[in-house]
């Protein structure tokens, strides 16, 4: 038994000193690996700095996510299951900060962001994704950083959602029967190259026949603000991010925090002053989460700035042009592009990784719009955005090792099944919703894109359904077992 302290959240490690030293050494080895990759590739061709930029932002994301145990599944699940707003508050802090940095980046013309189409698909995708992430116990970014902590179950989630996406975007056959005729007609009217077979495959027709026909604008663009600073700070940041975040925090305060705050006998109720103090107390309740939110928000904004700066420096619009100039043409789409959002993203590059494996196994993954026209299927070793995902895992591992929190955890069969099943739902939800909790929610709501809130609404509903299911399952099992005891 280790020494126990009564500090509310802080802890004392009791690991032997030698173990700590080993972990520190391991952390330096992981860090050293990424440093060597960056320096070596830079020495081969200086243009690899574009890929390294993704890598180091991924590393920062991984460290921040692990430090704050930052997980959107946890945010929704903890609210509905045990009434803890800690993580939801952290996410709102990150949203506000990311939106402010993004607004500046957008106003000075350095943003890489493009709004997603606005439609009901956002809610449906979010809902499916939300149910899945509660089943797995982690969102898309959460599963990545937990992989870095040594969780094999989280790795299973990542693999499951990656392969589900890669398979789903290429499925045709009987799924074509579920496609509305209007989508097929609209997809056919786009005159896409025949090699993409745009009228064969559910996802192709969903993309070309439905998604492309929807409006896609940020609030700043919808409001027609002539001044770019007003459009970015008032339209995108204030209206689409700051005000909704403040309102959501107020709702969380009233529903989940106020009662326990006012229960404190040392608090003398003084009307709105006490309420504001309570609101602030909720925001600062978890220093760890608040700091992680702050780092993530600022880093995500800077990431866009850096990527846009590099694009301007190299005179490109997409990294595919850079790869082609470097003599790397394998895996480029028919437009000579590869997935290159220029900001924090998770699921599409994972789908590319799985798609590349399937392609190597003989499946023609380039005959669909998702890979063949838009994102390409580069070798994972040369996939810029996948560098970010690998580094995110590495950054998380470094932070976990430094804090003696790294542990290789093998799942039980039951947890493995939940991980795979939930991962499938997350993969389907991510494709239908055009992204995950990061790409379709975090990065969108902070850049003035209202579609992110629709995805967030669906994800919250899905999380609520997932929690209710688990609660029901536990109650049902317990009731059965008590009856079985015949007590």
């Amino acid at each position, binding site marked *: *038994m280790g020494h126990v*302290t009564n500090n509310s*959240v802080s802890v*004392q*490690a009791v690991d032997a000193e030698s173990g700590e030293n080993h972990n520190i050494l391991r952390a330096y080895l992981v860090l050293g690996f990424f440093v060597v990759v960056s320096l070596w590739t830079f020495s081969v061709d200086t243009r690899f700095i574009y890929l390294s930029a993704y890598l180091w932002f991924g590393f920062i994301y991984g460290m921040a996510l692990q430090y704050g145990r930052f997980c959107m599944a946890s945010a929704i699940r*903890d609210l509905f299951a045990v009434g803890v707003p800690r993580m939801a508050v952290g996410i709102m802090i990150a949203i506000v900060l990311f939106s402010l940095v993004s607004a500046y980046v957008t106003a000075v013309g350095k943003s890489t962001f493009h709004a997603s189409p606005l439609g009901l698909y956002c809610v449906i995708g979010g809902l499916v994704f939300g149910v899945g992430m509660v089943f797995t116990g982690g969102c898309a970014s959460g599963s990545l950083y937990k992989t870095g902590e040594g969780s094999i179950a989280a790795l299973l989630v990542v693999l499951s959602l990656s392969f589900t996406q890669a398979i789903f975007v290429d499925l045709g056959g009987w799924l074509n029967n579920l496609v509305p005729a209007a989508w097929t007609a609209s997809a056919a009217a786009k005159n896409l190259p025949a090699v993409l077979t745009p009228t064969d495959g559910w996802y192709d027709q969903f993309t070309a026949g439905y998604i492309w026909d929807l409006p896609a604008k940020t609030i700043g663009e919808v409001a027609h603000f002539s001044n770019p600073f007003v459009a970015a700070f008032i339209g995108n940041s204030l209206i689409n991010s700051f005000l909704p975040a403040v309102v959501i925090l107020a709702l969380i305060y009233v529903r989940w925090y106020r009662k326990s705050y006012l229960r404190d006998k040392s608090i003398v109720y003084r009307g709105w002053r006490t309420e504001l103090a309570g609101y602030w107390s909720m925001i600062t309740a978890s220093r760890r989460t608040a700091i992680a939110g702050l780092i993530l928000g600022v880093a995500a904004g800077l990431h866009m700035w850096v990527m846009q700066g590099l694009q301007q420096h190299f005179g490109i619009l997409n990294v595919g042009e850079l790869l082609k100039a470097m003599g790397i043409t394998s895996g480029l789409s028919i437009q000579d592009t590869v997935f290159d959002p220029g900001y924090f993203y998770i699921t599409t590059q994972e789908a590319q990784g799985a798609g590349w494996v399937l392609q190597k196994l003989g499946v023609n993954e380039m005959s669909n719009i998702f890979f063949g026209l838009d994102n390409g299927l580069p070798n994972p070793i040369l996939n810029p955005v996948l560098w970010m995902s690998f580094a995110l895992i590495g950054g998380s591992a470094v932070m976990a090792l430094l804090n003696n929190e790294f542990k290789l955890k093998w799942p039980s069969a*039951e947890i493995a099944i939940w991980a795979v099943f939930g991962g499938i739902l997350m993969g389907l939800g991510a494709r239908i919703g055009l992204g995950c909790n990061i790409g379709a929610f975090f990065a969108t709501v902070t850049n003035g894109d209202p579609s992110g809130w629709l995805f967030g609404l669906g994800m919250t509903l899905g999380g609520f359904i997932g929690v209710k299911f688990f609660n029901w399952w536990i109650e049902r099992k317990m009731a059965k077992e008590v009856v079985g*005891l015949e007590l």
Partner: protein
Amino acid sequence: MNRNGERVMVKELTIRKSGFLGILDPGSLAELLGLKASEPGKPMAGVKEEWVEISGYGCLYVTLSLNFIADTCLRTNLLTKRALAEAADGDVIEIITDNLSSVETIPFMSPNYNGLHLATCQDAQCWRIYVQKNAAATQEMEEKSDGSRDE
């Protein structure tokens, strides 16, 4: 031993899975809900003697020890909530977990279920979280009882 020097038996319950997607095995469940106790004088399987000294709270004995190693955060949190609901006033519950999300959440969720988070301790392979049910009420009762004895 507890603070009076008496030996205290601590129930250590491992939340085992039974069958596909099982939640608890019947024996553990009954123990958890207080429906089944060990025979007097005969220690139960998994019983161990343990007390903890927590600075600021003194020497407390663990009434219930829940092992959630390798479990998901949702199951850990929900079953901790359940254990707090079933615990008697003053009971100290030890939650053993290696899920960092639960390590962070349980101290925050405890007050919602009349629990006082006493301490969190990191061991080599896991974390031990100590929560006391209705600690304030228990303390008040003890003070009253001490007062009446003094009179």
